[in-house]
């Protein structure tokens, strides 16, 4: 572990002032489940580590003006145990429940999962299908970035060094959402591939479809072309298979320690098809 100075921000303005002065040499810590292993690597040498867990008001899930607002230091455990998420967007709760194990979920936060920008981040596909937006603050003010524009590469985001991710907002979800993950074991494992879908159905017809995947491209991706295939169509297994294939065509999986690209493509199609069948009510 490298030496660094640890600073615990007492308030949001305190944190933003710190970042405006020292943001370039600072890494932000909340749960630390991603950052601490990174600090053990030789190539990660921040001068400062800024703790944001003591800032009041960054934690919790609220509903206001037809929008769900999730504070950036809300933990995975809070997400999976939230009644309102269970009711409105179960996929997000399912995604949170699939992260690591109980110890990790008690520490890890939604903001960290997003800001760490792992291509395999489990919350990302679920949030992408919910049209989530990231509220970002700095001393200069607040800006809102759609999550699909937030991820810019593996470990890279739209955040500037002086900025802090403070909230994830989600327009009140409609339709049925499903999240599925395939890992190398049942817990404590990064995804080989993960998928989230959200379908708004009217009888057999699909009014709106949203599809996202993780761990198959440099960033988590929304699969818009595949979504178009389902829009205003009667959904059947054949169309779902076609759509899953189209979604995978947008992926650019790599070979890595967890799996080879060919396996990600094959397993990804299967997961997508199953998630779509479940969301359309064609399969349990």
């Amino acid at each position, binding site marked *: 572990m490298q030496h660094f100075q640890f600073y615990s921000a007492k308030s949001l303005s305190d944190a933003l002032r710190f970042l405006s002065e020292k943001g370039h040499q600072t890494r932000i810590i909340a749960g630390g489940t991603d950052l601490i*292993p990174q600090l053990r690597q030789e190539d990660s040498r921040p001068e400062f580590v800024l703790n944001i867990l003591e800032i009041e008001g960054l934690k919790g899930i609220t509903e206001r003006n037809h929008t769900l607002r999730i504070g950036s230091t809300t933990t995975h455990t809070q997400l999976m145990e939230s009644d309102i998420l269970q009711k409105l967007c179960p996929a997000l709760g399912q995604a949170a429940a699939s992260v690591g194990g109980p110890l990790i979920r008690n520490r890890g936060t939604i903001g960290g999962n997003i800001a760490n920008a792992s291509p395999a981040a489990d919350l990302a596909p679920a949030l992408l299908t919910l049209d989530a937006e990231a509220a970002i603050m700095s001393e200069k003010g607040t800006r809102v970035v759609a999550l699909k524009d937030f991820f810019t590469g593996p470990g890279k985001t739209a955040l500037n060094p002086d900025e802090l991710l403070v909230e994830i907002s989600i327009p009140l979800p409609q339709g049925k959402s499903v999240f599925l993950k395939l890992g*190398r074991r*049942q*817990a*404590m*494992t990064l995804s080989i591939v993960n998928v989230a879908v959200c379908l708004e159905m009217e009888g057999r017809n699909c009014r709106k479809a949203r599809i996202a995947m993780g761990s198959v491209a440099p960033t988590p991706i929304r699969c818009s072309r595949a979504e178009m295939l389902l829009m205003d169509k009667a959904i059947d297994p054949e169309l779902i298979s076609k759509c899953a294939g189209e979604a995978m065509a947008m992926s650019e999986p790599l070979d890595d*320690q967890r799996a*080879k690209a060919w*396996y990600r493509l094959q*397993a990804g199609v299967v997961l997508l098809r199953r998630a779509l069948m479940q969301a359309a009510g064609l399969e349990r």
Partner: protein
Amino acid sequence: MKKRGIGVGSMFYGLGYGFSRQDISSATIEVCEDGSVIVRSGEVDFGQGSDTILCQITAEELGIPYDTIQMVTADTFTTPNAGPTSASRVTYVTGMAMLQAARAMKRNLQSVAEKILGQSDLLFGNEKVYSMSHPEKCISFKDLAKKAHLSGVPMVETAWHDITTKDVDPETAQGDAYAAYAYATQLAEVEVDTETGNVEVLRIVTATDAGKAINPLNVEGQIEGGVAMGVGYALTEEITLEGGYLKTPSLGDYMIPTSLDVPPIETHIVEVPVSTGPYGAKGVGEPASIPTAPAILNAIANALDIRVTDLPANSANLLRLIREKEREEKNLPPG
């Protein structure tokens, strides 16, 4: 599609080192003036429970409570050599040395008790030494220890146990390579997802010959731990190198099973005593993990009619074999 299969794995395993390799162990017992007992042995309990076993053997022989015995182990300054904790040998070999040391001590104490009680049909039990024919003639273990210290019999005994075997015939490789053999059979039931290649082990049933289970709960624990290791060996654990560099240096990369990956395990302890072990006991440490992978792979073969010959049978490896079989069945070229 999900397909289920059941498979059996059986093994026999030579306990200790065998093939004329030196296999010795020793233990020392000391009875103090206050009736407390100190056991010393170089054996290493790294969690498998061998300290418990030696303590139980001592308590059994001297008829005293388990918690009056102090264990001093794995200290090169004070403990006699017991050989390594390996080859499923500590209960089997060191346990026998312990038994012999405890019995030697018992003989010393008995000679003193015979003089005091005027009886020779003595039993050690309930912290007392008493006559079988005249149970009212008895002395507490504590008083006996004090009197024995004043009578000049040895109050420290060491036993040295050697199970080194003859080698097999160098020409024919025939012979009895090991002092004893352990046997175990396991059944695995699996469910395979034929589209992702993922294998879920639904349950494992085990039957292990422990010779004599000195501590049945401990035996069950060793078997469950062994099964967990076997599940990892069969399905997920793999060391990979790239250009000579280890790509799986941490337990974040090297996939051992989590509690969610280990199925319910049903354990049956079989007791066929072996004359060369303490009370007939054999080792169960390694026998617990050996049959698991074969049982799982046979269950996969039963489910898919596919024979896995390269471990681990992880999702990707299994899906590749499933696809190959589909191509073969359709007479398509390998791809």
